[in-house]
């Protein structure tokens, strides 16, 4: 927020300076230097006065405001107007719009699977070379892979999030003398202890309700367990369908997660029985951590935004988080995470220039400075992270020891990743066995 106050006058000054220098014609001293100084970082993107780029994504509310602010300077310096539109219905609407010929110029895809669907349908334009080079420079090869479909490179990553944080109240832990668990087994031990200790407190609270996307928070659980119990190789095979979805290792992972989620003793603090997970909104689900009706809540770093205003998110604050601990320690320090991929439906000069900016370290720094998000861009200065949690997340992302894997359901074909996997989770919580759920998801995997 500090940035808001600072950016607007600077932007205004920049515009003013440009106008002045344009008016004075012969380019008198101070005005034009100020203008070129502000815009020096943006010279490589060229001048595209009067051009417009439309952008469509899932990002709404405060996040959208911050996003627009992070390219305000770019707009001023290049003359491009960015028309931004965010919608929670993006995942379905982007398909509707592409099919009806009203696609945006640029779409920010939260799921590589959806990106691949759109690319294979022939709607997307391959990424320009400048973008591809920037991605080679600033991201690990993994990230480049997520934007590549059938050998063609389409989309640069934008921001990143880390999933699998376990949120807890440090004060409660301290009062009760509980330690932050270092392994999965310790975590289960702790959960059992909490369940036995206090009849008014459940070890976990969870909520998978999310409108038509109901079930997705559950896919995060399964992915975390698969990666931690069976390692990145199995995880990659699973996501790429080189092993079937109902492979015994995956069913076993469902059962491991079920030790917590399907156990009446373990869930669902503040909301009811196991099945209340399905009728509890994912954004509200964590709240009982604050009033002590549950001890832990599994959710990505963006849960930080779901706490009520004024909640202090810090190691010694109201809430803090640890990464879901390893199950098989020999498989390394593993995290799952997500991120956005920027794909284009047009390849005009102004669109390419905008894509290049979004792929740059400048953008990553500008956006992360505004708080609430991080990026896996190597050019990101960790000091730009605004909160303790953002810092922790950047640390995890930039740690060379970390085994990072993209959210599996986002990588799977949309028929699975944003349909049958979600539905499977819903059936699973609602009482269908792990094996049956895995079988039914496997049978929904597209043949072609």
């Amino acid at each position, binding site marked *: 927020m500090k940035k808001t106050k600072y950016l607007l006058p600077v932007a205004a000054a920049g515009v003013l300076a440009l106008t002045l220098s344009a008016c004075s014609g012969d380019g008198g001293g101070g005005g034009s230097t100020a203008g070129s100084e502000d815009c020096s970082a943006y010279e490589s993107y060229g001048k595209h006065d009067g051009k417009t780029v439309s952008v469509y994504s899932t990002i709404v509310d405060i996040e959208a405001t911050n996003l627009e602010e992070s390219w305000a300077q770019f707009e001023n310096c290049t003359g491009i107007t960015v028309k931004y539109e965010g919608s929670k219905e993006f995942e379905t609407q982007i*398909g509707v719009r592409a099919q009806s010929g009203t696609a945006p110029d640029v779409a920010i895809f939260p799921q590589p699977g959806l990106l691949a*669907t759109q690319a294979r*349908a022939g709607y997307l334009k391959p990424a320009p070379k400048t973008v591809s080079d920037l991605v080679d420079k600033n991201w690990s090869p993994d990230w480049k892979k997520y934007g590549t479909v059938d050998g063609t490179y389409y989309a640069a990553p934008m921001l990143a999030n880390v999933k699998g944080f376990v949120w807890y109240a440090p004060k409660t832990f301290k009062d009760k003398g509980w330690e932050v668990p270092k392994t999965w087994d310790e975590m289960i031990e702790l959960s059992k202890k909490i369940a036995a200790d206090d009849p008014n407190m459940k070890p976990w609270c969870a909520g998978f309700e999310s409108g038509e996307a*109901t079930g997705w928070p559950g896919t995060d659980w399964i992915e975390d367990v698969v990666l931690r119990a069976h390692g990145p190789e199995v995880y990659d095979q699973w996501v790429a369908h080189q092993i079937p979805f109902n492979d015994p290792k995956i069913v076993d992972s469902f059962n491991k997660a079920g030790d917590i989620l399907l156990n009446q003793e373990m869930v669902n603090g503040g909301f*009811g029985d196991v*099945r209340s997970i399905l009728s509890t909104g994912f954004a509200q689900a964590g709240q009982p951590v604050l009033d002590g009706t549950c001890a832990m809540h599994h959710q990505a770093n963006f849960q930080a935004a779901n706490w009520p205003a004024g909640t202090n998110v810090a190691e010694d604050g109201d809430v803090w988080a640890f990464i879901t601990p390893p199950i098989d320690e020999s498989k390394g320090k593993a995290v799952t995470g997500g991120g956005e991929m920027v794909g284009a439906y047009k390849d005009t000069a102004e669109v390419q220039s905008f894509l290049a900016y979004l792929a740059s370290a400048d953008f990553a720094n500008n956006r992360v400075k505004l708080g609430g998000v991080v990026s896996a861009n190597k050019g990101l200065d960790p000091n730009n992270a605004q909160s303790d949690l953002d810092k922790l997340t950047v640390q995890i992302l930039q740690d060379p020891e970390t085994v990072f894997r993209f959210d599996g359901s986002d990588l799977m074909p949309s028929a699975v990743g944003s349909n049958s996997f979600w539905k499977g989770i819903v059936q699973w919580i609602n009482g269908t066995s792990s094996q049956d759920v895995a079988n*039914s998801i496997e049978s929904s995997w597209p043949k*072609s």
Partner: protein
Amino acid sequence: MEFIGEKLLQVVIALAIFAAVIGLIMLLVDRAPKSVKDKVTVAGFLAPAAILMLVGLVYPAIRTSMLAFTDASGNGNGFDNFVWMFTQPEALTTLRNTVIWTVLVPLLSTSFGLAYAVFIDKARGERVLKSLVFMPMAISFVGAGIIWKLVYDYRGPNIEQTGVINFFRDALGMDPKQFLLDAPENTIFLIIVMVWIQTGFAMVILSAAIKGVPVELIEAARLDGANAWQQFRNVTVPGIRGALVVVLTTITIATLKVFDIVRTMTAGNYDTSVVANEMYTQAFRAGEPGRGAALALILFLMVLPIVVYNARVLRKQREIH
């Protein structure tokens, strides 16, 4: 502002073009030689509507039908989509639910609407009583879905209830119930929402029809010693048969297409999906436009006989009068 200005300009231009085209057609029709003038006039006035029909209805219908025989990448796959529809347990549940909806909603809404219309006919405060039942009609399906989702809301035992029904269950010492999660009755709980909306519609149309039944007939029946039920059965119902058919078929068609209620309340989870919802999900979220199109085609085939029947009854009525 700039954006709105741009759109306004587009609207004005579009209207101007439309007026110019119509004007041109009129002019040409007017100039046509006398011998064919009638035909040209008819063709000239039908053409705009016919073209819009072709572009907006016939072309999409043909394209959807063709799409129904393709897979996700657009290659022909014969009847695979239909095989999927009639073999996958999930898709079968969808079809079954749609049948349940189409049987229950028109029957319940029409009976409740009819009963209400008869009982409040000429009662004191009739207008107020009518508007009370008609009011849900003014709420969108999405709005109604959200309202009823709150009504059905669930919290575990010993936790303060937020849903109206569970609050009362709790007060009566009963365990709270997960209304939307328990198949198969959850479909019934969704159907209640649609009945709640459509009863008003049925009631208004039927009430108007009842008022159109000649008083002489009813009086004659009364003089003949018919009791209230006999009057209703033998005079009122035959007198409003046309209106009843219209109400039943209209609600049936609306029910076949039901989408918003299911989507807002359960998103088709917990075995509550219906054809329209599944069509949208398959086509746009799962990236299987072929399956979506196949479902759309089936929906079309289900609606078709009802529309034909409706049209025939209306035509017969016109012949009688």
